[in-house]
């Protein structure tokens, strides 16, 4: 029997879909008994969402005012306390999970598998290295607890329809006061979330300006798509950092990824290679993006974007 604890990611209202993908990853382990841990100020709403995920047996709520914001230094000792009963602790490979999980591994003195992309056994996994240019199969010691961050682009979300038990946990853990949350600034829009959208339209440096990104937004809205950007476009100041797709930005797996004016640097391709269909539009027919695209169109993107927008839905 393998007891797997998954750290749920949420904003107090909605469970992040990354959590459901971690559940799918965990169900790939034989004889898995899966629990989800939720830390927050009031996790009642997200607890019922977590309990509905198919394959989950129990949801553990840890509500206290200090958990209002997910600070790794605050959550880690609580997760260590909860982890005592588990053989595996998984978190999503999002900025939340990547920040928190190694701190927990450090406190426990155990190894972590980062960006787990395939389960080959309860202690044998595959993960990417060198920006996805190589895939390693790693094995850990079954006598020790295993921590992992789950590469969410590699797994489908678990279905709903489950009916897990929900339990409130009062943990007697002293929390540090050396780390304080001050605030957040998000470029939140009405558009779909980049990480989980089924369609994504991304722009590169060839767009030439932040102003020209508006053409991209307009096309994305017609498609009901989220908007992304290459690292070059973000570095040039055309788009905010949270829009960056690639190895050092978001790794995504939409049904359709449309790359406009993106040449296709390896670190960008790493972030999109799990997309179902890749569409490339670029003026340079030799651009590496065409090597991985399912369909490509060579031409002037400032003519193509408006025409495409016009012809979609006709």
């Amino acid at each position: 029997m393998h007891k797997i604890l998954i750290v749920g990611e949420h904003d107090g209202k909605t469970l992040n879909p990354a959590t459901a993908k971690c559940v799918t990853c965990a169900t790939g382990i034989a004889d898995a008994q899966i629990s989800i841990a939720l830390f927050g100020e009031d996790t009642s709403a997200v607890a019922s969402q977590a309990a509905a995920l198919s394959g989950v047996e129990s949801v553990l709520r840890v509500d206290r005012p200090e958990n209002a914001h997910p600070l790794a230094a605050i959550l880690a000792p609580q997760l260590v306390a909860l982890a005592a009963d588990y053989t595996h602790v998984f978190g999503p490979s999002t900025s939340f999970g990547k920040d928190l999980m190694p701190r927990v591994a450090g406190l426990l003195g155990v190894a972590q598998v980062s960006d787990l992309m395939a389960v080959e056994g309860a202690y044998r996994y595959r993960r990417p290295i060198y920006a996805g240019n190589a895939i390693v199969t790693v094995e850990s010691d079954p006598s020790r607890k295993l921590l992992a961050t789950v590469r969410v682009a590699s797994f489908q979300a678990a279905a709903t329809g489950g009916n897990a038990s929900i339990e409130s946990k009062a943990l007697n853990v002293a929390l540090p006061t050396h780390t304080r949350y001050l605030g957040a600034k998000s470029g939140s829009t009405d558009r779909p979330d980049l990480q989980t959208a089924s369609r994504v339209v991304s722009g590169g440096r060839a767009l030439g300006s932040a102003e020209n990104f508006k053409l991209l937004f307009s096309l994305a809205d017609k498609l009901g798509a989220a908007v992304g950007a290459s690292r070059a476009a973000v570095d040039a100041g055309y788009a905010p950092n949270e829009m960056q797709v690639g190895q050092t930005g978001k790794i995504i797996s939409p049904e359709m990824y449309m790359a406009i004016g993106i040449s296709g640097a390896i670190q960008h391709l790493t972030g999109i290679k799990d997309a179902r269909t890749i569409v490339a539009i670029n003026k340079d027919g030799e651009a590496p993006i065409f090597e991985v695209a399912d369909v490509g169109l060579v031409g002037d993107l400032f003519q193509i974007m408006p025409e495409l927008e016009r012809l979609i839905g006709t």
Partner: protein
Amino acid sequence: MQKIMVCIKRVVDYNVRVRVKPDASGVMLDGVKMSVNPFDEIALEEALRIKERGANIEVVAVSIGVADAQQQLRTALAMGADRAILVQTDAAVEPLTAAHAFLALAKKETPDLIFLGKQAIDDDANQTGQMLAAIWDRPQATYASKVEISAGKANVTREVDAGLETIEVDLPAVITVDLRLNEPRYVKLPDIMKAKKKPLEVTSLDALGVSAGVHLKVLKTEPPAQRQKGVIVKDVPELVAFLKQKGLI
């Protein structure tokens, strides 16, 4: 603020296209150009900028790895670090081992701040800084895109999935840096000459009382699955027809 420690990793240069060995035993490293991990270069640059703003701050660059990692520490010294320490080992160093070695150095050096890159571009683990903060029992501020130091505190803006988040941490603390924190300086020839005279101490994991345990055994290393090259269409109507036929629009 008196001392900043910066952790540097020797990695395959980011311009090298890494290839997997045919026998799946690893990646080809013979004769490949090695460099300072780019994120660590940003970490060092930030430490140097803090030093240049303040009075009398010592910047110590530290690394763990083979004897040749002295080259990367010399680069760090040429950029402006005051001295360097190499924990020399031929063993494969896992993040947990690295964190313990850095902890041993932190106990000796007692820095006010430790900077690291958010991840190394070889194993992409993204663990060492957080593990170090955990076992040092100090705050962590990961993925920093802005760092402001005031009396005994650091105000750090972090790049998170939803945008930017700002936290305040008491010093000493561990800060891991993201791409957009700064643009590292170029090293000039006179600085390279000067760096040769700066102190570079070599120690070992044994001397620090750290064992290089293997927690994760690497069974094989394979190339990634390749995507098939698709079709090129000639105009927008053809593209739209393709997307409609695939049921994508």
